[in-house]
């Protein structure tokens, strides 16, 4: 069974690494500051105790007041996982550091989030729309997207 890392001790460990990076935690979920996502991820990957070598998925959820980035991380060698979350406040010009240099598997997933949610990933080498065509108006996965505004 894939075990879930204890969020509290992980939060303490991350705070030691980057002061005040953790904004909150609850069983298996850790909220970190959006601008430090890439640093936290590379720490989690390189630390032999966590060794998160596998990025399961990158998702974004639109909560109207803020967007939440959700990273499902897993260690294949140690068979445990953790969910990393990050709140990005506002509606326009949201920027998050890219994790493509840590896991190549983030490539298409970040492009998809950019395409459908309109979140920019700093440092992505090829941030283009993935599913829709260039020039498509808006980002349709957003809650306020209306195809035919009336």
């Amino acid at each position, binding site marked *: *069974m*894939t075990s879930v890392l204890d969020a509290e001790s992980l939060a303490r460990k991350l705070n030691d690494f980057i002061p005040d990076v953790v904004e909150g935690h609850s069983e298996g979920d850790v909220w970190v500051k959006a601008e430090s996502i890439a640093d936290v991820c590379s720490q989690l990957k390189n630390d032999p105790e966590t060794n998160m*070598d*596998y*990025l*399961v*998925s990158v*998702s974004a*959820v*639109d909560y109207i007041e803020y967007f939440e980035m*959700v990273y*499902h991380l897993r260690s*294949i060698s140690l*068979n445990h996982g953790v*969910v990393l979350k990050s709140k990005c406040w506002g509606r326009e010009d949201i920027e998050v550091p890219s994790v493509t240099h840590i*896991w*190549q*598997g*983030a*490539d*298409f*997933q970040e492009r*998809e989030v950019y395409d*459908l949610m309109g979140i920019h990933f700093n440092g992505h080498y090829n941030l283009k*729309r*993935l*599913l*829709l*065509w260039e020039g498509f108006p808006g980002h*349709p*996965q957003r809650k306020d997207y209306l195809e035919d505004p009336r």
Partner: protein
Amino acid sequence: MPIRTEPITVNIGPQHPSTHGVFRMRVTFDGEMIIDVEPIFGYLHRGSEKLAEERTYTQVITLTDRLDYVSSMSNNLSYVLAVEKLSGIVPPERAMYLRVIVAELQRIVSHLVATGFFLNDVGALATPLMYCFREREKILDMFEMLCGARITLSFMRVGGIFQDAPSEFWEALTDFLEYMPGYIDEYERLITGNEILLSRTKDIGVLSSEQAINSSISGPILRASGVKWDLRKADPYDVYDRMEFEIPVGTVGDNYDRYLIRIAEMRESLKILQQCVNQIPDGPIRADTANLIRPPVGDAYGHVEGPKGELGFYLVSDGGISPYRCKIRSSSLINLTALKDMLVDTKLADMIVTFGSVDINMGEVDR
């Protein structure tokens, strides 16, 4: 004086007989060698994630059928597992066994289709494909007995399954378990040692285990690269923890290994099916749940080891009757991340073979 060559960019697809749907890639060649690959998606995008936000939890099951339409059962299973995790519903034993049975049958179907089309791409035009489709047909008949549909099944429900299996299903399944090992032997006799297949697939499209893990590859491709990782063992769901089976792994990670892994996995699926038939208890097939599910506020991630890799659903609930957000972790899309690594420095003629060995389904790539 060396001969100077200009790189040539060739567009392949979206309408191309060997791209298994509407896949398009822009490939740059130096002479005959591939130097760059850029896949282009979106020709089958239907906005399934957005559509799910407007449907009730039960109605979304029909959308999942249409993701990877050769493995609808696995898609159904992944989705209902996520909803059950979100709402704390536990299905009865018999339902869990039946789910495992249909999921394994579906895995055989998907691997048969993958193997058949892969051989089609190698150049064994249509004949091996028809051999594979012969057994696929038998399984689709069984699905028809279960729920009346053959492709878009919608067989699973949150907290169980649609209905119990009729008696003729069990007869058909018993027969199937008897003759299927012989048919797999037949494919192996015809194909596995074939010299043309060996020369077209050995040491071509190699993916190392580090690259595979780093690119989030899952399923048979990850295992062909030598990583012993299978969610059915690593994070068992339903009744997989009671099943005894091996995880076949490859050594080289080339096209041939990927073919061998699929053949070996079909044999392991038959083992699981036999154990399920022996162990399945009597009892109800659905938990006592309301038809209109309102999970509590929160989020959950459910995943299965689908035939093509890890298929996951990340669901967010706001307490209403439809998901607030339904994110699909598509194994086909993410497995294509490593396509460039596999293709660069191989020849034009190997391109379609390598692409075929990845086994994707455009319905799941574009969603």
